[in-house]
């Protein structure tokens, strides 16, 4: 099989066996009156593990939508498939069935399940943000470098001065201690890494921010800080989709929340 690494043919033919069987699920739980920024219809994803010849279910027939400025939270035990949803939107996972309609500024309404690799790269650079507690950066880069790099990617190298100024503003804004700016984040605590990740995602002003268990393995004080942060982002009008382990933390913060169990929405 010759796979052409070209945007028009970027997914393997086998990835969408039942594309024609897509259906629109009506009455999704969070259906708002406004035009949604993101609308997920019947999303399913499973993982075929060749070594043991087994198929692991990720998420099954998930449908919901998200309006601009909303914060939707997904909760559920680990293994319930909530991460899979987020990863399908970010396209770290190849969606198997269903549609992920995203209202892109650049491409109009786009099904992220079918978008080309190049379109996804564009959206990741300019429209979507993904934040987790884990750091994905080259070693030996200071916290400042990491955020600056993200700024340069969004603004262009010609706007270096603006990128530098904005970097400092964001680091300060998200409460990263100035003493840490010139350090390698390898030694940072979970909360510090998270705030660094948020700064580096938010400097691009994403239209949709995906939060991948930002509070996992944080102590209560740090969790409260994250909560403040999310409140702050929400007040600034950021549209967010977050997955969380525990429900209490989300109390009163989400516009909508739903629970996942064994890959299904409950």
């Amino acid at each position, binding site marked *: 099989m*010759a796979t*052409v*690494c070209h945007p028009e043919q970027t997914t393997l033919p086998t990835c969408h066996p039942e594309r024609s069987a897509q259906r629109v699920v009506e009455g999704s739980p969070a259906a708002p009156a406004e035009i949604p920024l993101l609308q997920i219809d019947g999303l399913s994803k499973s993982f075929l593990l*060749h070594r043991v010849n087994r198929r692991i279910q990720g998420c099954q027939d998930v449908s919901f939508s998200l309006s601009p400025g909303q914060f939707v939270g997904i909760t559920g035990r680990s293994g319930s498939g909530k991460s899979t949803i987020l990863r399908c939107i970010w*396209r770290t996972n190849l969606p198997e069935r269903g549609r992920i309609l995203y209202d892109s500024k650049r491409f109009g309404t786009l099904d992220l399940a079918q978008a080309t690799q190049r379109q996804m790269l*564009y959206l990741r650079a300019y429209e979507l943000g993904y934040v987790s507690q884990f750091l994905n950066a*080259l070693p030996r*880069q200071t916290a400042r470098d990491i955020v600056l790099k993200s700024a340069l990617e969004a603004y262009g190298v010609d706007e270096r001065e603006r990128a530098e100024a904005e970097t400092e503003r964001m680091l300060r804004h998200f409460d990263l201690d100035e003493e840490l700016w010139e350090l390698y984040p390898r030694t940072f605590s979970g909360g510090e890494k998270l705030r660094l990740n948020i700064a580096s995602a938010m400097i691009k002003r994403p239209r949709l921010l995906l939060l991948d268990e930002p509070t996992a393995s944080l102590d209560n004080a740090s969790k409260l800080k994250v909560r403040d942060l999310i409140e702050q982002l929400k007040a600034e009008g950021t549209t967010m989709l977050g997955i969380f382990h525990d429900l209490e933390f989300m109390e009163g913060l989400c516009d909508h929340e739903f629970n996942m169990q064994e890959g299904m929405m409950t």
Partner: protein
Amino acid sequence: MLDEQRFGADEAPCLSVRHLSKRFGAGCPRCLGLEPQLERNVCPRCGTVHAVRDVSLDVFPAEIVGIVGESGSGKSSLMKCLFFDEEATDGDVRARPFDGGAENLLSLSPQQQRAIRNTVFGMVYQNPYLGLRMDFSSLSNIAEQMIAAGSRNVGFMRARGEELLERVNIPLSREADPPRTFSGGMQQRVQIAKALSNNPPILLLDEVTTGLDLSVQAAVLDLVQQIRRDFDVSMLVVSHDLGVIRMLADRTLVMLDGRVIESGLTDQILEDPQHSYTQQLVYSLL
């Protein structure tokens, strides 16, 4: 630098490869037939090695495309064919910065191919001995590349050479030293400086960090990212090290027995590999 204009429906790849094949050996009806009867990439009857089989790929402006695969999967043969170090058996390669993509580079004259090697492509080999003249000074190595592309002004070449050496963090006090006296990491950086000397729009990097210690490896990777960002260069990066690919590549192709078996966004290849071989490869990651 990712440029908004470039991601449109009409964006064009700056390097486009179609159905590239490289055979070592004459082949026989068994391995050249429409449905080659091969278990791996060697023909059991005639012994022909099918190093690269029907590979197609695109590299877009300022994009880094990674190629992973075990040794013998055809990664380096592919790179050598693109840089005309080896003659491809079959295929079509077009480079937009050269002639707008009008001609198949593989069918050009050796002179034209040499010109492309000097101005369109920059190559960094795993083995610095292939890319550098070890007994010439670092500066002369860079000048040599510039002379090959038509430069004659010594002052300009010196200035450019020093600028590049500075850029790759080679102290100017050592510009007159031959790379023979350098460490592996420094040699690799001189090679990168040399490859950049004529501002090629496309860089081919073949296992650039293999054999370097971790700290030097991080410095080289950082340099590669800076180059992409600051000079708008597209790159094809071959590595068997998934960590390197993870850090550098936007998109990745997986090769096995000369073929591309899977391609996708790099994090998708690593987190949600589809092919059984890719799964095996990813699960071997430390």
